[in-house]
């Protein structure tokens, strides 16, 4: 199969993730959109590795590293969300204005 199809799906997922990260008010959904963007990048890495550079599997190794980083990011992000929720009692990003001048 052509890698173009996989890269196209990945581009669509990335654009959806960008939209969600900018437009949603709920901070948990913003984090979910960031996970969508991570996944779009992983599809790209695996598809190009598998279909165009079959001899090595370095793309998959990098994708594995990226999955691990995404897991660490999600854990810290959700812990921050919980800490902020305990402090402010809200999950809407426009209320997080502790640093506002």
């Amino acid at each position, binding site marked *: *199969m*052509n890698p173009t*199809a*996989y890269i196209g799906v990945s*581009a669509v997922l990335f654009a959806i993730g960008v939209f969600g990260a900018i437009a*949603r*008010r709920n901070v948990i959904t913003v984090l979910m*959109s960031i996970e969508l963007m991570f996944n779009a990048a992983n599809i790209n890495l695996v598809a190009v590795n598998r279909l165009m550079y079959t001899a090595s599997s370095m793309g998959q190794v990098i994708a594995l590293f990226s999955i691990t980083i995404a897991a660490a990011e999600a854990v810290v992000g959700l812990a921050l*969300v919980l800490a902020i929720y305990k402090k402010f009692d809200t999950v809407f990003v426009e209320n997080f204005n502790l640093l506002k001048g």
Partner: protein
Amino acid sequence: MLTQAIFAALGGLAVICALGVVLVRNTVHGALLLGLCLAAVGGLFALLGADFLFAAQILIYVSAIAILFLFVVLLAGRRAELSEEPFNKSALAAAVASGLILIVLLGTIAQSKDALKALADSNLFKPTTGDIGQAILTTHALGMEILGVVLLVSLMGATLLTKGLSDKEKIKP
């Protein structure tokens, strides 16, 4: 032919579920749809013959991260938020910006169609778990060790951040 059909099903499922994640009002449904979307992406990995990454995607993303999101949604939410507007003021601008990003990306892909040719027969399955294990213990050993430290630090940081606050530290909006 069968590969195309499976690809269309999995890709369509991933895109529809991703749209659901950013569009539905109820965040619990969003977290469940995120799990489905990540599972569909794992299916795409399996279709590409990346057996180890398929397992990692299911183990890490679907069963750990999506469930973690679900937990946090259930801990840090309340019923009254369901009746509030899910998008902020810049939703239209965000739609335009992400649409422009999508147009640029798809245009670039369409332009480089000739360079993006499948050089290998994707129906030929070759397990890559051995290769990946070899790579992360030899050529990428340093990266893997650093990742271990990153995971440890993030675990400690998460524990520290979610430790309880006393009442006088609380700020009401």
